């Protein structure tokens, strides 16, 4: 069922040159390639339709959209007929109406309206069309063969009837209401690209089947919901709509999960969210979504939410519920005490890349202006800080170069260290669409990720490199480009620094970078590397997409530079269809960096030592600011253990689960005197907290998020904050209590201040976003409509700068004791530490973390699929179930970190990127053994979790974890 109040023009927009034609009495001008159906809709003429939808290519099966066209025989279907100059179309008339009624009657004979209309709450398109076409009765009667009734007229079981499939936790499929229009099938194929649905049989016997005639849940369906949105009858229907009834109002907002940043219409009934419908006009998603954003919103109203502030003197004391005033005063007092006794630098704060730009900006302002130091960092530290460092130093701006739509013009796509079908699903669907159109794919990843081979998509090259050898592989690719004369000399000469390029060329041409020389390091055959390099370099448009598999390494920043070098050397920067595209993990990772969450940078990545920039903030904020960088996250933990860093305000992050070397992190938290956790749930970190400030979910506040393509989109308050305050208001209370006055009346005012102080945001404000939908920064006088493609004529830094990228092997080496390499990642249905998704029905797909291990390695250790195994590194030990699979190569094991109990980060180490201290999550030397009981850490942690649960106020018991 389509979104509330959304018009559907029947077929997708076309891009051709304008064409003029006549439809009924109207002269219509539309781009060539537009269907007659859409052209009519744009002129306000509604032609009845059933199988067509704006989100899908036309199919032409229902024959309801018949029209007459001068000079054409018969009655062509308006949805499949493209416009032509001078065409004369008639859409209504007695003959057409009679034909359409006939079509409709045939449908209704098989699908009685009475049975079909009800569940969609009066919004069934079939019902609406029946009304438009003027059919109420059916000449054929309902006694004939149909699949609606469970019993035939003679009382026998009806063999055509199939029961409702309610296996999916979020939607049901009732075959009795299906008119076999195949919109869902096409949505699954064309929009999502999963190919899970088929129509089986013919005529009256035809029916929709998921997978190999399985239930929806058992099939390969990824529960993106595109089919549900496409269904015109309510055969596929959200269970929430069935339970709550149709919505009354829709408010456009932005998904709070991943860095794709999908736009949604939150459909509400009073204060209750009925469903999320992806917005057709969303710049990042164009009406598509994934199982997280569309369905996994139940956490907002989950009983585990803590809604009242709490304090306690020691972490072994019971929590005491207090008023907001008391909690804030308590936190401020303790912070001030610590500063008085241990110095101004003894406290700091963590901003969240899940919170809005406005909230993030305010937390860093709190730290710099009210705490009086630069000890502010963000979880972007542990994911994409190398992107900022690497791209700023080569291209001049710490951000991706393209819009997502750019992929539709790419000819060759290199995906390295990213798993978009799991981690960035809506972008992955667009990418797969481009691949089905013929673009070539190169995947560089130790694992055989889904993209390597999935229905109608196959990578030309899968470079299955050893974890930790990205730089060696990227250097080998670049070597081939230089050695085989594939450099775009004209581009390099015009756009890049000559001396740096000359130095890089000499460096990379050295035989030690040849694929033959690096094969023993990377494990990738030289011939594959050469072929991939040629494919990439010779393409008209070649794009690189990368993720945390590039950044979360000891050489993360170096690898990002190597990617920028490769793109510059081949001239793949500065137009649509190519570029360097970091895929950000959490929704507002880009924004967190942009807003100045890093300890050494103000907004827009300007160093605190820059006197002019600092002066602008000092003037605006009315305080003196420190020119020295502050502590980064890992440095904070070290300083805490040294007794020099004792108080922390943590907004929306779960450090004790998401950061590496968990036992080190928890020891650091234990060493602090005042830990203030501001979050939705009593997370793992809150066990070490002295003050708990309840947070608000993205449904409860105003603000903006910035996605991976620098797109700033609005987040809108669709329900009252259950905890009483939007998060920026809480930060403001704390600032005031610390003695630094803040008086923002709205999030919009905060954005206005950001725009005043940040050159790349000068043209961004809530009112403009409300009018334009979204804006990609830089957005200012030079680019009032924003900047989809960066570095078009010149690089942001002027000339592009090649940097030498020597491969340095990680310190983390396999040994006889730890002979395997562990690498970590994500899965579609869960998100990061899982605090939200674990509290939804998404557990139906992934109820716990698993350790993927190659059959050979499993056999050597006597491990069978499903066995409980111990995973041990030099820093820690945990246990989890094994999955034996050849998706991972021998010598490599893989897991996710969505569940606190399996604690993948108990084993990850303190190793980090040389430039940014981004942890080396992707490489840990481990051993795996069969075990029968949980590790000591798990037992301790479970006990601790139980103890902590007992310290909660009565009403909140059972909420821990």
């Amino acid at each position, binding site marked *: 069922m389509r979104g509330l109040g959304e018009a559907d023009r029947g077929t997708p927009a076309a891009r051709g040159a304008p064409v003029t034609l006549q439809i009924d009495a109207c002269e219509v001008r539309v781009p060539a390639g537009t269907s007659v159906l859409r052209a009519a809709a744009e002129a306000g003429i509604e032609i009845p339709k059933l199988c067509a939808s704006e989100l899908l290519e036309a199919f032409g099966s229902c024959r309801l959209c018949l029209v007459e066209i001068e000079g054409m025989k018969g009655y062509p279907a308006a949805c499949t007929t493209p416009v032509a100059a001078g065409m004369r179309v008639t859409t209504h008339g007695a003959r057409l109406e009679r034909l359409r009624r006939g079509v409709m009657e045939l449908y209704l004979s098989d699908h009685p309206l009475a049975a079909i209309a009800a569940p969609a709450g009066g919004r069934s398109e079939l019902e609406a069309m029946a009304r438009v076409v003027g059919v109420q009765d059916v000449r054929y009667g309902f006694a004939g063969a149909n699949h609606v009734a469970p019993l035939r007229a003679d009382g026998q079981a009806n063999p055509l009837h199939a029961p409702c499939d309610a296996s999916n936790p979020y939607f049901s499929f009732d075959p009795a209401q299906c008119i076999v229009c195949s919109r869902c099938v096409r949505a699954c194929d064309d929009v999502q690209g999963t190919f899970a649905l088929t129509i089986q049989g013919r005529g009256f016997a035809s029916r929709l089947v998921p997978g190999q005639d399985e239930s929806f849940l058992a099939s390969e369906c990824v529960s993106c919901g595109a089919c549900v949105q496409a269904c015109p009858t309510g055969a596929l229907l959200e269970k929430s709509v069935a339970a709550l009834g149709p919505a009354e109002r829709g408010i456009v907002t932005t998904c709070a999960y991943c860095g794709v940043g999908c736009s949604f219409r939150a459909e509400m009934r009073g204060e209750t969210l009925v469903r999320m419908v992806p917005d057709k006009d969303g710049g990042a998603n164009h009406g598509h979504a994934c199982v997280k954003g569309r369905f996994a919103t139940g956490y907002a109203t989950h009983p585990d939410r803590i809604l009242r502030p709490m304090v306690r003197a020691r972490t072994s004391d019971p929590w005491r519920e207090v008023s907001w005033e008391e909690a804030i005063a308590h936190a401020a007092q303790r912070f001030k005490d610590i500063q008085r006794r241990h110095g101004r630098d003894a406290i700091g704060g963590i901003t969240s890349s899940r919170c809005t730009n406005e909230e993030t900006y305010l937390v860093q302002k709190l730290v710099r202006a009210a705490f009086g130091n630069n000890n502010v960092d963000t979880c972007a530290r542990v994911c994409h800080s190398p992107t900022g460092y690497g791209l700023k130093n080569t291209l001049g701006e710490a951000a991706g170069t393209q819009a997502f739509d750019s992929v539709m013009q790419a000819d060759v796509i290199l995906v390295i260290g990213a798993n978009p079908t799991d981690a960035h699903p809506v972008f992955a669907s667009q990418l797969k669409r481009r691949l089905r159109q013929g673009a070539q794919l190169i995947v560089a990843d130790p694992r055989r990720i889904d993209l390597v081979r999935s229905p109608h998509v196959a990578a030309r090259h899968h470079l299955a490199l050893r974890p930790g050898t990205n730089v060696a592989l990227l250097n080998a690719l670049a070597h081939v480009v230089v050695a085989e004369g594939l450099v775009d000399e004209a581009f390099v000469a015009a756009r890049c620094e000559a001396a740096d390029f000359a130095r890089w060329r000499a460096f990379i041409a050295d035989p030690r970078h040849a694929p033959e020389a690096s094969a023993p390091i990377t494990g990738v055959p030289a011939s594959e590397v050469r072929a991939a390099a040629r494919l990439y370099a010779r393409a008209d448009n070649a794009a690189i997409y990368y993720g945390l598999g590039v950044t979360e390494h000891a050489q993360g920043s170096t690898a990002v530079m190597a990617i920028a070098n490769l793109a510059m050397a081949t001239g793949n920067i500065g137009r649509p269809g190519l570029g360097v595209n970091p895929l950000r993990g959490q929704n507002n990772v880009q924004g967190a960096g942009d807003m100045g969450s890093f300890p050494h940078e103000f907004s827009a990545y300007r160093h605190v030592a820059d006197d002019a920039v600092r002066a602008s903030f000092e003037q605006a904020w009315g305080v003196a600011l420190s020119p020295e960088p502050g502590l980064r996250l890992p440095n904070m933990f070290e*300083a805490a253990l040294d007794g020099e860093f004792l108080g922390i305000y943590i907004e929306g992050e779960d450090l004790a689960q998401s950061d590496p070397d968990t036992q080190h992190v928890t020891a650091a938290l234990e060493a602090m005197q005042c830990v203030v956790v501001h979050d939705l749930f009593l997370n793992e970190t809150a066990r070490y907290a002295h003050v708990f400030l309840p947070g608000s979910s993205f449904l409860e506040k105003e603000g903006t998020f910035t996605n991976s393509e620098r797109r700033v989109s609005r987040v809108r308050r669709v329900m009252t904050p259950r905890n009483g305050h939007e998060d920026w208001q809480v930060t403001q209370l704390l600032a005031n209590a610390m003695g630094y006055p803040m008086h923002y009346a709205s999030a919009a005012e905060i954005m206005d201040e950001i725009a005043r102080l940040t050159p790349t945001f000068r043209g961004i404000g809530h009112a403009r976003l409300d009018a334009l939908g979204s804006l990609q920064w830089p957005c200012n006088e030079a680019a009032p409509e924003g900047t989809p493609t960066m570095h078009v004529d010149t690089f942001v830094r002027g000339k592009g700068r090649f940097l030498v990228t020597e491969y340095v092997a990680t310190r983390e080496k396999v040994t006889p004791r730890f002979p395997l390499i562990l690498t970590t990642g994500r899965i579609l249905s869960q998100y990061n530490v899982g605090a939200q998704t674990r509290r939804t029905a998404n557990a139906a797909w992934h109820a716990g973390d698993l350790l993927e291990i190659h059959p050979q390695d499993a056999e050597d250790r006597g491990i069978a699929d499903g066995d409980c195994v111990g995973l041990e590194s030099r820093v820690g030990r945990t246990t989890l179930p094994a999955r034996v699979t050849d998706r991972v190569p021998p010598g490599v094991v893989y897991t996710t970190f969505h569940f606190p109990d399996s604690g993948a980060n108990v084993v990850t180490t303190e190793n980090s990127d*040389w430039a940014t201290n981004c942890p080396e999550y992707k490489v840990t030397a481990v051993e795996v053994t069969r075990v029968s009981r949980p590790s000591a850490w798990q037992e301790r942690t479970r006990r601790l979790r139980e103890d902590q649960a007992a310290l909660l106020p009565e009403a909140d018991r059972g909420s821990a974890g």
Partner: protein
Amino acid sequence: MSRVDQAGRAERRLVAMANDIADYFASAPDRATAVDGIVTHMRRYWVPRMRERICAHLAAGGAGLSDLARSAVARLGAADAPARPGDP
């Protein structure tokens, strides 16, 4: 973890971080540029207290520091000052 262990650990982390930075800058065209790059990096990204400690560690013998890192820390100690905006 006792305070003593931690002191050792913190120093080891600083040394490892300094060596990692030095490894990157080792491919600079000459030693002076490499040392310059490392010193600038530390000034831009390390809090004064971390810079102080690594200098103290060098003064106490500098165990574990690579050759290049050692030269850089010596330079850092000689003239520590806030980073300048134009530095890489």
